[in-house]
């Protein structure tokens, strides 16, 4: 299985550009959908469900975002989770190396696969996309 449908949830447009470039440079043939905050991402998942489509395979999730931040997204996601046709793999990708954020990520073990610290490297991206090769 390979990640075909990817959501990137981050309010930083430069990060959107970087992800696109990194994927391209590493020959990962994916065109992610970008969302600037948690609310837009939740709405994205919901509209997929409404259309009877499968949810995304992978979500790269930032923590600090306006309107709904990463944690609030995860809370909303918990409610949706059981109604999903299949599992979504979520990675937190944040520039926060604050221990309290790391600990908080542990509270979402059922939802969050791992925690990546920005800056993201090509290596990080290859590791993520080789899963579950």
């Amino acid at each position, binding site marked *: 299985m390979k990640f075909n449908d990817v959501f990137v949830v981050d309010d*930083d447009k*430069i*990060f959107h*550009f*970087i992800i696109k*470039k*990194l994927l391209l*440079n590493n020959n990962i043939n994916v065109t992610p959908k970008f969302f600037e905050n948690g609310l837009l991402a939740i709405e994205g998942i919901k509209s997929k469900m409404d259309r009877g489509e499968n949810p995304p395979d992978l979500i790269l999730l930032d923590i*600090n975002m*306006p*309107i*709904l*931040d990463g944690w*609030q997204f995860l809370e909303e996601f918990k409610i949706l989770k059981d109604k999903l046709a299949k599992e979504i793999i979520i990675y937190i990708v944040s*520039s*926060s*190396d*604050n221990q309290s954020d790391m600990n908080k990520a542990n509270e979402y073990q059922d939802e969050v696969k791992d925690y990546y610290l*920005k*800056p*993201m*490297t*090509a290596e990080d991206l290859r590791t993520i996309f080789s899963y579950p090769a």
Partner: protein
Amino acid sequence: MLQKPYAEKKLNSDNGIFYKKLVTKIPDLIFQLSLSPTGDLSSPFLNKAVINYFELSRQDLRNFDLSQRIVADDFQELLSSIQSLDKNTDFWSYEFRAILPTKGLRWFKAVANVERDVYNYISLYGRISDITEEKQRDIELKISEERFQFAMEASANGVWDVDMVTDKVFYSAQSMKMLEMDEQDIVDTHLKWDERIHPDDLEEYQTQIQLHIDNKTPYYENAKRMLTNSGEYKWILSRGKIVERDEKGNPLRIIGTDIDVTKQKENEAAVLKNLQIINEQNSRLLNFAHIVSHNLSSHTGNFKMLLDLIETEDDKETVLEIFEHLKTSSSALNQTIEHLKELVDINTHMVHKKESLDLNLYLNKVLGILSEEISNNKVKIYKQIPKNCNIAFNPSYLESILLNFTTNAIKYSHPDRTPEIYYSMKKEDGKCVLEIKDNGLGIDLEKHGRKLFGMYKTFHKNKNSRGIGLFITKNQIESMGGNIEVESKTNIGTTFKIFFSNEV
């Protein structure tokens, strides 16, 4: 056993022998002293007891006179006490010290009948008894009382003694002084004293007393505020113990001390206050470190990733695009650093002096600055701030805060209704509270409450939101010793309450 009549008869017939025996065998020292008009004292008669009393040898006995044993000063006074006897007095008593070869210093008391003859000789007939032990007890008691008295005075501790049957209490002068009353011992009713206890401390005081009465505590101890005569409260620490109970265990008497611990309590409060300030500073520092690390590292992270990309990029147009992103990141970093600098300025608030500011004046100034936005958005302004309402604050902060709340209220106004902003000044717990209430979009506090005053937090789908205003505002208010509270309901409106510190 002698028959009574016989004994009486015997006594009468042997009168002389009887008295002789009485005088010689009795363990008391019986004497006759005689003082000449020229002041010479002689002892025409001393019974045998004198040998024991003054530890005399046979040799001593031959030339004995009292001055050999009696302490010199006391002997002189003894003489003058006899000389100064009133003509009409026939009784003499005198206490004196004597130094004995083995027993050392002893106290004696002489009592005698006084007779005067025609030649102005004074004769004393009487006895001397050894009162050393009594005297020692008196002295010990006196020393112990003095020690207690001085200790109490020096430590400024008061003493009380409650008779629980009559409910009368003895209060020492120090206890009285503590409450700024006349400095003398008094006896008063218990009730009158209890009336001075601060209402908030009464219950704990009664609980502690009851616990000791019920024998659940080994002694009674309670610190409470008591009203002094000047109308101020003092912290008094009382300790006591029931010293007497009846056979049923009911307390009869309780004795204790009072200590004025107002200073300690004040110090304690000051230490707590300092601790609170330190904790606040620490948490602000931690928050600041967090902000710095997070906000700077998100930019430096972008630099790193963009530079990585540029290294391997051949396509000229893409390189130019990356450069554009680098520029954007750079100016964003600059802005973040500006904000952090502003934050540091606010938190080193020693620099910012407080001034007494007329709130109406500043509010009108801010409304003047925003007059265009107010009229463009048809905002209705309501003011309920009393005249001459002065607050201690930094002038530029006050302006910035009023500006921020007002622009926020306009920016987040509800599209379906005319925006209204209410400004009012109230007093809560003796503090001035400025309320700024709007009928705008409101904020879901359950969702966003914890982040509301955070840096770079925005909650509305508004293009102009930067998420810096409330963060800076909160920091400015706190640096002036105030605090801020918020009430809000989505689609109804938001009320911010700014609590001003009274300290200038």
